[in-house]
């Protein structure tokens, strides 16, 4: 049941939040490479391309992101880019996640030893 709730788009996992934020930051140029780099640069986490697509596909199946094929380029060996952007429910879900995180985090900074 819990799994079902997650799947139905009730809330977002931590990694899903990272990916959604990265897509949001990179729009309209959000595809595998830029999303991966955004996560690496901002969150300092090295992730595999496969993991990102797994997550993006899941988010897409939940209607939180939408995607479209771009043009093939030579440096990609003639392969096309898959561009992602947040849908309205996606923005809504990310916003909600963030709100809850922010309210949960209020007053925690000192205890965690963060500025």
């Amino acid at each position, binding site marked *: 049941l819990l799994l079902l709730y997650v799947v139905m788009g009730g809330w977002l996992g931590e990694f899903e939040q990272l990916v959604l934020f990265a897509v949001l930051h990179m729009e309209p140029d959000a*595809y*595998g490479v830029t999303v991966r780099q955004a996560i690496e640069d901002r969150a300092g986490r090295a992730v*595999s*391309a496969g993991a990102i*697509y797994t997550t993006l596909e899941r988010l897409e*199946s939940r209607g939180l992101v939408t995607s479209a094929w771009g043009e093939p380029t030579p*440096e990609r*060996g003639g*392969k096309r880019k*898959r561009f992602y952007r947040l849908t309205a429910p996606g923005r809504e879900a990310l916003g909600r996640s963030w709100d809850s995180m922010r309210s949960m985090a209020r007053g925690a900074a000192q205890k965690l030893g963060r500025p």
Partner: protein
Amino acid sequence: VRPPATPPPRLALWLIDRLLSPAAAEAISGDLLEEFQRQARTRGAAFARRWFWRQTVASIASRGRRGSRRQSAHETRYAMGHGAGRTSGWTQDLRFAVRVLAKSPGFTTTAVLTLAVGVAGATTIATAAGWVWLRGLPYAAADQLVLVGESNRDDDDVGTVGYETVLDWQAGLNSLDAVVPIRAWTPTLATDRGAERLNGLRVGWQYFGMLGVRPALGRDFTEEDDHPERWRVLLISHRLWQQQFDGRLDVVGRAVSFSGRDYQVVGVLPADFEPLISEHFYARADVWAPLGYAVSDPSACRTCRHLRAIGRLAPTTTVPAATAELAVLHAGLRAGHGDDYGETPPKIARLETRFSGQFERPFQVLMGAVAFLLFIACANVAGLLITRSADREREIAVRAALGAGRLRLVRQLLTESVLIAAAATLIGFAAARYGLVLLAGAAPDDLPRLDRASSDPTTAAIAVGIGAVALLVFGLLPALDGARADLQTVLRGSRHSAGRRLARLREAMIVGQVAVALMLVIGGGLMFRTVDRLLHVDPGFEPRGVLTARLSLAGERWNEADAVRAFQRELVDRIEALPGVEAAGLTSLLPLGGSYDRRGFGIEGQTYLTPDDAPRAERYSVTPGYFAAMGLRLRQGRLLDERDTTAFELVALVNDTAVRTYWGSANPIGQRIRFGDDSDSPWVTLAGVMHDVRHYDLETPPIPQLYLPQSQSTDWYPTLVVRAPAGIDGLSGLIRRELAALAPDVPLYDVVPLEELQTAAVGTRAFLMRLLGLFAAAAVLLAAVGLYGVISQAVTGREREIGIRMSLGARRAEVARLVLRRGLALVGAGLAVGLAGAAASSRLLEAQLFQTAALDPATYATAALSLLVAALAAHVLPLRRAVRVNPNLILRGD
């Protein structure tokens, strides 16, 4: 300008395409390619390739792990075995296997790396053996190429031959399509960097045609070129073309000057031409010219035996048939020119046998060694799989109960093994590429073609083949057995249903591993002893701090012997004046240098029935400084010195062995000898006796030796010997400077520390020793790891028993004995089998041994002992666990 694109790992791309859905594969591989190019530019190609592989593996694995709903559904269907009907069954198997393996990284890493060690070793050696030993010579129909030559005695090697004889052979033999004379040729080329001595051959004009080689540029030699007036035309190697002529196309027709004479370049040989046939064989050659002899030449006579003859057998002939025909022809020649020929008929030997024959044994030994290593690795991985399949019995039984057919389960288990083997093959192949480079570096110089043995498609094929064999050995058995799991037994909780059967299998493997490891250790030990013995042989000279180099005084300028002698005196004086130099001298012949100069001589007052019975000695024509430079020891009398010029009495020194052999107990000082059997050749008085020097190699007992002052017999190709106790680094530069100031046209070449000659004399054996030692170490390590696994598992399985025993009052020592008894029984059996195996197979090594018995008890004992120590070390951790078993915990848990 953009740097050229680095090629991404194609196999990784293929894996992505195969294992991921098309849409994901396109997006992911595109992303990876895009980033790969950036990584390659900023961090280098090697880093980028590693990064690409990590990403590929992580991507494939993560798409399994972070499974979506769809994938979970897959998994369920899969577990029930329904996937088999789908077209993508193998893909599913593969994906599932990746996921399963990724879930237990410890197991996967151990299995893959263990197997990779075996694959890398086997691939490296098999590739090297292919080049050195198995692969034919790189010429057309090379198995028909033969070496033809006269020989003095039946047991002699195929020898050299005179020009006129070759002509008769060419005309009179039907069984040989071609007989081509060759001789060594070392012209000196003037370059910007000073004089350079080239290695080359003078060849009969049909030479390249016979080998089936055509010049890449220009033309081959023609019959007209092979003429005393017109032979100064050249074919040059691709290397020389690139280096001296910058690869310019107009090189054909250009004139080249060797020692002041002009030669015309008529062609360039292909880059892949391997000039294996040279003076000493295998040595590099860079320039070829026609022989250009005529029958009237003084050096073309029948007894002027300085040519080698290479021939090609007619298509349907055999070596014995050709030899028989040659014997008949030889008998005819003897009838016509009786004085010129000996009784022994000429000999024919296949070139390939000659090239590869001497390396057959060492490589057989090495191939055997890597096969053993591979076996140990396979046994370890099989052991790991067996342990694992015991753990997975429950999973497999459940899947079987859900309806997965046995075949399906076997296929699944096998797919995991295939993946392990594939990963190990990849890593092993990559490691073999470095292995080959290391091997080429460690190999003695006389191992031919090893520098060419780079990894190529053949190596990849070898690696894949070895990986496949390994897979059969380690994968099939556990897979078949693992799938036999029966739900009833498993779910009822008797965990050791299949376990017992498999444990026995694993124990048998341990016995085999220990045995094989012991055999490798013994082999390595025997070689170590041999090399040690060889290096302790007193060579008769003091090699430390001595540099040797050769000089070549070719050209018109050096026609006068007086000019040569004056130059040599001046050069030695200048070098002796260099800082740090203690002594310097010249010699016509260097011990361990690979050359011979055996001369017959007569002793005053002694007569011989035939010239063959006359005394013979290796002759060294030296300058006075040679003795001090080499560190030779005087036994009796005096050394040669500056007084011993032609103006004075002719003198010579002999060595101990010569005295013992030819003078017995008589005092040799003052005795007289002479060279040649002319009664008018001058007498030479013996002035001193030298300590013996090992000349051919370190193991051949010393032979009679003679030292003559170089002032009495001029040498145009002397070897310079310089002793500088403080160190010989940078010495060659100083010597070159002196030489350039004195005679810029004289090349200095083969600059080698004397110590290196000593090491090179141990060459093939040291090589064999190092490799066997390496494999033995790897084998012991792997066997110990395997043993550890078995003992550890046994302790786990008997924890209950141990607990009960301890609660009943068993002491720790008794528990330890319990564990040890089982392990040591296995090790003991392994050692016994290994000792027997080593004794049986040590005959393979016998030819390589020196002052070491193939059954040397000390080596066998040491090897067995060291393996026992390793085995005990493998017991330490499980033992500690066993004696710390807490009976309360165990019994309560029950």
